[in-house]
């Protein structure tokens, strides 16, 4: 089963193709959630930097009405026991709070009510887990290493972003969860990011967006 945690538009020049593919995933039964960039398509509110504003404007111009309606109708979170999926934080999905510390991770994991919580929004892969003292501890995973996630404790994975990972490695990030063996594996996979950057430039979007895709920042 696939889960796509949102922010399909507002970064690159491929909004239409991406949403088209995401819609097919949704038809096949994937969990598809709304990110803050997706929410911004039909609402002008919320803060976005200039680059993101430009990419959002591009998406508004190029997306078809059915595609816009699809994004507008996406849910903010999904429960699929023993997992919970959300774009930002389960504590208040609509506020787009960042889960970027043990404290915010604990609030999010407590609110989700499931032992395994998967979040997007923050771009870097991180695994938070509950320690015997009841607090959360952050762990930087090594891609490709299956991590056993057993025990009567909460786990929260920031699955990492496909575009604009912030660690200077342009490879896309994704995460696998094996709920039978109870293992989480963080992955990185390269894609044709030079072509993606080229499209951004040719669409006349801010050069910084292309540069970030190329250099993984």
């Amino acid at each position, binding site marked *: 089963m696939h889960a796509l945690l949102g922010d399909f538009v507002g970064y690159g020049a491929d909004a239409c193709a991406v949403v088209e593919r995401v819609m097919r995933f949704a038809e096949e039964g994937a969990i598809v959630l709304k990110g803050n960039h997706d929410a911004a398509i039909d609402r002008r509110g919320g803060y976005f930097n200039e680059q993101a504003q430009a990419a959002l404007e591009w998406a508004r111009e190029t997306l078809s009405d059915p595609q816009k309606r699809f994004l507008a109708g996406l849910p903010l979170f999904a429960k699929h026991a023993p997992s919970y999926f959300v774009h930002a934080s389960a504590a208040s999905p609509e506020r787009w709070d960042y889960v970027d510390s043990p404290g915010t991770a604990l609030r999010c994991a407590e609110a989700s009510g499931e032992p395994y919580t998967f979040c997007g929004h923050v771009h870097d892969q991180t*695994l938070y*887990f509950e*320690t*015997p*003292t009841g*607090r959360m*501890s952050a*762990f930087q995973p*090594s891609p490709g*290493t299956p*991590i*056993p996630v*057993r*025990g009567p*404790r909460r786990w929260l994975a920031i699955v990492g972003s496909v575009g604009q990972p912030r660690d200077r490695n342009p490879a896309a990030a994704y995460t696998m969860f094996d709920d039978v*063996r*109870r293992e989480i594996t963080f992955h990185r996979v390269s894609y044709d990011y030079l072509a993606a950057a080229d499209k951004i430039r040719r669409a006349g979007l801010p050069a910084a967006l292309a540069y970030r895709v190329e250099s993984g920042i």
Partner: protein
Amino acid sequence: MSTQIRPGDTIDGFVIGDCLHKGGNGYVYRVRPPPERDAGYPLLMKVPGVGPGEPTLGVVSFEIEQTILPLLTGSHVPRVVAVGDDAMRPYLVMEEIAGEGLAAQVARAPLDAAELAQVGAALADALQSVHRQQVIHLDVKPENFIVRTGGEAVLLDFGFARHARYPDLLAEAKTFAAGSAAYVSPEQLQGHRGDPRSDIFALGAVLYELATGEPPFGEPATFAGMRDRLWRLPSPPRSLVPSLPPPLQEIILHCLETRADRRYSTAAHVAFDLRHPDQVQLTRRAEWTAGAGLGRQLRSWWRSRGVAVPVSAPPTVAGSAPVILVAVDTEHPDDERHPALRRATQALVAMNAEFRLMFVSAIEAAALGEGARLEDTASGKHLDHRNRLRMWVAPLELPASRTSLHVVESADPAETLLDLARVNHVDLIVIGAPGTSDRALAWWRSVASTVTANAPCSVHVVRTPERGESATPRPQIRANPPMGVA
């Protein structure tokens, strides 16, 4: 909650036998495997203590061991045959190690110096093997070592361990995360679980006990009692066993430094010193025979006041405190490769803050029968080459505490260098390439090529830059192989 396991029960085909151990970390049973799981050696099954009255820490510890032990390889840990990861009935089936528990050797302590050095080096080898695999044990104590009949040490019980590539389930669990009272390092008492040198402290405490029969800080029953070691200096082992050689006291007290950054940086260095006590650079503490007087204890306390143990970045990158072996051909002191080899050594030393250098000269075995002149006798020849080696090293102006000289008689220099590299956990071998005049000799027949092909580590092959005039004409084919290390 798992139901009680009884002898005769079967779990996933394993037939339960006698219960060998029952303790805080769970139960250990002998088991008979199903035919398809028969590994050809005796097996043990470990299960966590679960249920009313069992500590929850036992479950976490079991989970940690279940994750880490199967990842470890080599002869210094028991082999894992099966992992039961059903949450209702977790278990671990592993090799039963034949040998003597180190606790039995502690009971015989004080050991004599030679045995202490030998056993101690074996323990350090086991730690080094585990550290190299990115794991810190964090509960090093006699009960967790078995010494095989052949002398090799095996490390058991990874319930407190930490693996760099996996989340540390005991992170921040300060009060339970500390190892065993008599051996635990000061920084663990402050909640730090990320420094391999914590294991070196505990190893020092084990060596102390093997040397004297007593643990260095007693067996404190309270947390406050354990915290004494944040500043208190242990009585020097020689105050209890005056016959203990000063180098061994030096090694033990070096391991037991309160601050991690003053200890040995790797277990390989401890093993090295225990194997070459004659090469240990002695400091004042080597000679101490009385407990620290008021003055020294006060100084120690003063240094430790406030935050007692400053935590420095541990040497996490493998090889950041390398053992480097430099092969020096003392049979041919005029060889043009010597300056290049010396320059390469200098460059390597400049790159590493915490290095250990072994200079090795592999010389031809002296002919049987004593010769007429001193330098023709075996001992005379040995002495002569030792002096040549010392002169070779002198211009480098290296601290004696980081260098050692070895003259080895050998009929097969390549094999001798490789053996030394394996035994001493060498990270890098520096060796001269075959010289220009020897270039025609098939490269794969030279010592350098054999060493390069079979080394357990990196090899730095040093070649003298070719001079203009010798670059063009191809060297003549030589009938005789050259002598010496090349």
